């Protein structure tokens, strides 16, 4: 008996939902094996990674805070990836948003007023959009590959951030440590859950997937995105590819930029060198884990957020590498891609 893949007449909706669950289980299993192989007690590791963060309210709060930027970035990437615009540069757009949103505070630190916060958030979103407009322009005008241009711009953004935080924007009162002045209260997001870092930004972030869902479901733009799954159909319908590239890059860039400024004006509180870790790439994982469905972005972001909090926890309690979180994400996505074969194919056992 050997298994063969047989194409389903229609892709299975049920499998589309079940596949991420299968993948999560498989990824957990692989992680336990990895922990055992590296000489750590697997059950202890499992507890530190997945259960300890959920055992306390403050752990839940940390997971929410970590997931918020992922929900924003992931929601934007769902649109881009469905439009087959491979924006791999959410990292750079996130940094651009954080930097653009910080300008006002850096040059006018004493600023007050109710208008400050909305303006800062707007600047952040615009910063991300402008930075995403560069690859859009290069793609439309010069036919440059979006994957590579967005990716190269990630490294450029990171260099720019280093320049600013070590150079002209460094707060002299920091005793030589990099980082800008702290954001004043008027430019900071109000806390919603006292004693934790859960602020207005978290709430805003979790609205993004819903908005994107509505956009895809009910707007002409959303219809065009859904149709662009088939190049032939888009061309036949007369939809402009150039406009689709522009719109999906601006949308995903804007959301990534907003995620950047929400972090800086929220949990971090200043523009720092290490604001980004690897959120841009984690956002890609979130988008795929959500099966490119905006409503799936929320659970996916929470799960990846849990990985971050869990691996930070395992680093402290078990001395494991913080890279474990990233490793988990990679294993999870690989497992999902393997499980997804069941969406389009069914396994049949055939006599050898």
């Amino acid at each position: 008996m050997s298994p063969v893949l047989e194409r389903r007449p229609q892709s299975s909706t049920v499998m589309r939902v079940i596949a991420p669950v299968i993948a999560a289980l498989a990824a957990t299993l692989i992680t336990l094996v990895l922990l055992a192989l590296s000489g750590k007690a697997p059950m202890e590791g499992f507890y530190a990674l997945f259960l300890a963060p959920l055992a306390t309210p403050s752990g839940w709060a940390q997971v929410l805070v970590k997931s918020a930027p992922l929900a924003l970035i992931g929601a934007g990437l769902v649109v881009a990836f469905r439009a087959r615009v491979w924006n791999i540069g959410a990292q750079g757009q996130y940094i651009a948003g954080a930097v653009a949103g910080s300008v006002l505070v850096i040059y006018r630190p004493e600023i007050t007023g109710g208008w400050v916060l909305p303006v800062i958030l707007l600047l952040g979103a615009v910063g991300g959009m402008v930075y995403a407009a560069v690859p859009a322009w290069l793609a439309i005008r010069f036919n440059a590959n979006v994957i590579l241009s967005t990716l190269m711009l990630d490294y450029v953004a990171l260099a720019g951030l280093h320049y600013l935080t070590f150079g002209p924007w460094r707060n002299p009162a920091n005793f030589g440590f990099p980082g800008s002045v702290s954001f004043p209260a008027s430019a900071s997001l109000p806390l919603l859950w006292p004693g934790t870092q859960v602020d207005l930004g978290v709430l805003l972030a979790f609205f993004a997937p819903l908005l994107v869902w509505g956009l895809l479901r009910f707007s002409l733009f959303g219809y065009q995105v859904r149709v662009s799954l088939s190049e032939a159909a888009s061309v036949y319908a007369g939809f402009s590819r150039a406009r689709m590239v522009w719109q999906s890059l601006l949308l995903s860039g804007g959301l990534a930029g907003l995620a950047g400024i929400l972090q800086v004006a929220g949990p971090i509180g200043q523009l720092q060198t290490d604001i980004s870790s690897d959120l841009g790439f984690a956002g890609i994982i979130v988008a795929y884990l959500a099966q490119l469905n905006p409503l799936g972005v929320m659970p996916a972001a929470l799960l990846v957020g849990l990985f971050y909090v869990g691996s930070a926890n395992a680093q402290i309690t078990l001395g494991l590498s913080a890279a474990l979180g990233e490793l988990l994400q990679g294993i999870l996505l690989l497992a999902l891609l393997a499980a997804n074969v069941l969406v389009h194919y069914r396994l049949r056992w055939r006599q050898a």
Partner: protein
Amino acid sequence: MNAAAWISLLSAVVVAATPLLLAATGELVCERAGLLNLGVEGMMAVGAVSGFITAYHTGSAYLGLLAGIGAGAACGILFAWLTVQWVADQVATGLALTIFGHGLSGFLGHSYAGDTITALAPLAIPGLASIPWLGAIFFDHSLPVYLALFFVFAIYWFLYRSRAGLTLRSVGEDPAVAHSLGLPVNPTRHAAAAFGGAMAGFAGAFLSTAYTPMWAEGMVAGQGWIAIGLVVFATWRPLRLLGGAWLFAGVGVGQLFSQAAGLSINTYLLSALPYLAVLLALVLISRDPLRIRLNTPASLGKPFRAET
């Protein structure tokens, strides 16, 4: 600058181009078979960490290189298994491989941070190494530097002069036609992906055992992505990889030399230069859509499954 400084600069460029050339040669073969593997960065990271750990424990940098090649090939086989056998999306799989490889290298290398090994020793080629100028620039390096150059020419010969190369190109252009002609589409793609992975692993192991023989997380630092850009820059032709690799490596090395020379440009801004150079080169090469369309393997990135 005097002659000695120029020689050391150019010789540094040849060395710095080596990981780019190795990884890009592998990726080129993979893409010519129709598989777009965006996991080069991750496969290099896996190659780097397995190469380092092996060299650290065995004391042999050559065994480290072999371990890196093996680990990279394993990643390439995983990629082929997912995208060819299981018809998974190539872009998603490549990105997953990059994130996985990054995570794995950080996880495995965690306890080796800052450890050093004895670097791969240079092997001066007798006779050639004593040619004035050229000897020091090209013929006084460690083994992978020569192998990188060798592979560029070997792959050129393979693709354009051998029957297996013709098969590989046909598979990349039109797998359906290749399949109906009885050519082994899936085995070819598996082999191409394994080779691409092995070369990326080799490139990574070169970084950790010869270029900077000390373990530091994130030492690949985007070179895998630059290698993918290099393949587009070379419009999928092996010999053109050479010029691109020397150009991009030259920008990186020039940046380091200008810092050493005390040039008053900010270090952080200068560090963006190699990436900007790749971006600029991409724009210049892609400006003509026809050139890209004619040279891109026609089935690149598209899933293929024979429905029998």
